[in-house]
């Protein structure tokens, strides 16, 4: 049966070869964002690349993000572009392991990326090689209602105890400290990641998502105990399990909840819900253990070169181009995210400024639980997080179950 599939795939590839008639000077790029901002940023960059390399004929296929996630599984074998967008961390692992991407260590070495993109290098690496070049990322942290904090004369909490004390004040005044919508699970993973990064640090995060630490490990149990404290002493909005992350903005915008552990893409959501820049602000997730160096969560988007690419030489040129400081500056200003290149400039948006400062100090950059852990583990893990948030007394049962899944996934 595999043979029949293979034959049909080969036929498909042959067919598309004939129809598109790719020439030597062609550079085919598959991108995955049709939203106005990101599309604009990408198109501008491609236009600039074309202007600088008039001899390269760039062909762009821009697809919807979800469709791209499905399509990439076929086109890497059947009809590979020369460059494709994808995600680092564990999301690239299946393709790297199947030999579908080529390592680009030379691009990094030739362009000084080992220094300029140092923060993300570990995330882009697997088996001792570097597999892609990132063009953008964004910070996670706590977005809060500045006006509510001012009304209650609260400062941005720096430590765990200060956070819990602030929560106490909020609750006395009828404000639920945190909003969240866990219907689609991943939001809970953001909270877990930060609690874990602050309780145990970056290494433990990586070891856990790499399957080297059990979920019943005392360190992870400690993370969950802190989470229980956060739920009991701070607390999240009721009914979070039936809300999406957008739904959860409603109590935040209405002033019923004051904080939201989220990524920077959510700022648009707050503004659309009627909040203005003065009402919202950003703070890093507070320290829990002062001895743990601060690592942050910042999912990155990157470009990769498929093994079956026909024009690898120009593909490497494009990869070198997208990580250049000036290109990253312009691109990320357009899409409202952060450039990864340390030499790049950032826009004067206050969230971007704070994010840039935060990530430049970070001792490690985590991608996100569901990008760092393999898919099956991530799914089970995030279901466990949601279950735990609904009933903290099930903690040990959940952790033991996750151990079972872990045994299964990382054989």
């Amino acid at each position, binding site marked *: *049966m*595999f043979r029949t*599939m*293979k034959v049909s*795939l*080969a036929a498909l590839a042959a067919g598309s070869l004939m129809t598109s008639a790719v020439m030597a000077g062609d550079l085919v790029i598959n991108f995955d964002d049709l939203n106005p901002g990101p599309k604009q940023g990408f198109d501008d960059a491609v236009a600039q690349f074309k202007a600088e390399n008039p001899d390269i004929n760039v062909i762009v296929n821009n697809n919807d993000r*979800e469709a791209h*996630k499905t399509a990439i*599984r076929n086109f*890497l*074998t059947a009809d590979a572009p020369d460059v494709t967008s994808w995600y680092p961390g564990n999301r690239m692992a*299946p*393709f790297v*392991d*199947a*030999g*579908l991407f080529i390592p680009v260590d030379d691009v990094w070495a030739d362009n000084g990326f080992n220094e300029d993109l140092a923060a993300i290098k570990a995330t882009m690496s697997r088996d001792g090689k570097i597999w892609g070049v990132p063009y953008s990322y964004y910070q996670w942290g706590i977005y809060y*209602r500045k*006006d*509510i904090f001012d*009304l*209650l004369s609260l400062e941005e909490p720096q430590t765990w105890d200060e956070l819990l004390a602030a929560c106490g004040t909020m609750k006395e*005044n*009828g*404000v639920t400290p945190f909003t969240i919508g866990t*219907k*689609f*699970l991943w939001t809970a993973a953001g909270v877990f990641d930060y609690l874990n990064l602050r309780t145990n640090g970056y290494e433990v995060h990586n070891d856990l998502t790499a399957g080297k630490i059990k979920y019943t490990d005392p360190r992870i149990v400690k993370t969950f105990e802190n989470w229980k404290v956060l739920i009991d002493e701070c607390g999240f909005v*009721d*009914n979070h*399990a*039936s*809300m999406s992350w957008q*739904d959860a903005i*409603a109590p935040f915008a*209405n*002033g*019923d909840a004051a904080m939201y552990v989220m990524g920077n893409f959510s700022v648009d959501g707050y503004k659309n819900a009627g909040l203005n820049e003065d009402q919202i602000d950003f703070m890093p997730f507070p320290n829990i253990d002062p001895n743990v160096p601060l690592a942050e969560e910042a999912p990155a988007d990157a470009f990769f070169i*498929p*093994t*079956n690419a026909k024009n690898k030489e120009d593909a490497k040129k494009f990869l070198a181009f997208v990580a250049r400081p000036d290109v990253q500056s312009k691109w990320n200003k357009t899409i409202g995210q952060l450039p990864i290149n340390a030499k790049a400039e950032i826009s004067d948006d206050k969230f971007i400024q704070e994010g840039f400062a935060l990530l430049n100090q970070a001792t490690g950059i985590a991608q996100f639980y*569901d990008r760092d852990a393999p*898919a*099956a583990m*991530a*799914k089970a893990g995030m*279901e*466990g997080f*949601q*279950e735990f948030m*609904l009933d903290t007394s099930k903690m040990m049962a959940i952790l033991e*179950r996750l151990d079972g899944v872990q045994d*299964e996934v990382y054989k």
Partner: protein
Amino acid sequence: MSDISAPQSASWMSRNKLAIAPWLFLVPALLFFAVYVVMPIFESIWLSFYEWNGLYRADGTSTATWVGFDNYVKLWDDPKFWTSLKNNVLWLVLYMLAVPAGLGIALFLNQKTPGMRIYKSLFFFPFVISQVVVGLIFGWFYNPDFGVVGQVFKALYCEETVNLVGNVTFKCSGTVPDILSNPEVATYGIIAAGLWPQIAYCMILYLTGLNNVASDQIEAGRLDGAKGWRMLWFVVLPQLRPATFIAVVVTVIGALRSFDMIAIMTQGGPFGSTNVLAYYMFETAISEYGERYGYGSAIATVLFLIMLVYISYFLWRMYQDEKGGR
């Protein structure tokens, strides 16, 4: 067929016309059935003996590895599989309520009053709209914040106050029932949503059935003093047997294919408690967090075997009826 003028083939054709004609008409259907139904069944059974993440290597070879019955062994120990199976049984049992409920509404609507067609159409309406829409409507209906459930609860148990920043908010003396996020009741909530169109379907089947109930038998029954339940049980229902059979069949099929409602209303959540086999299969094999095609195929195979039992019974029943009819 072009050489129909050739005398030999023509005579062979004309001799066997009656035997060949039905097959000729069946060929397109058989071909498509074989390619799109039968072959995938065997492919998927075959795939269930592999561990595969759906990827091919750069040279086009598959990354699948043979694991024999491993996937089935895993399935046996997988609590999510048993949850899904249990939910499938729940669906099957509770969905059967659609048959008597449909009969009840059909009997009620089987009257000659002006405008009856409008009422009938209104009752049939939920079956006409897409399952996805039904799922969305019920999802909103159950929503604890802006849904009917939430609003009614707020009206009863909450009082309106003004919060810190001066916006209207509610102080409640309890938490709003959150049907789709409560693992104990979420499945029942989805089944209730599914019953809505299914009852309409059974109703329309019974309404057509009731048109064919012989009025002379009703009159004869009435002369003999049959009324109410006895009339229904001994005179009407036996004549509705074909309608009942079809109603049960479509309801069982509907219950086993329950997928869209779950995908729309809960995505199998909270934490997998509303999964059924069909959705669990989709989740493990095709969804973003899945990509375990071998394991997904094993689930599909089990679902197929369960359906096979029922389908075999159904075909056998049909065959017996056909034989009896001749």
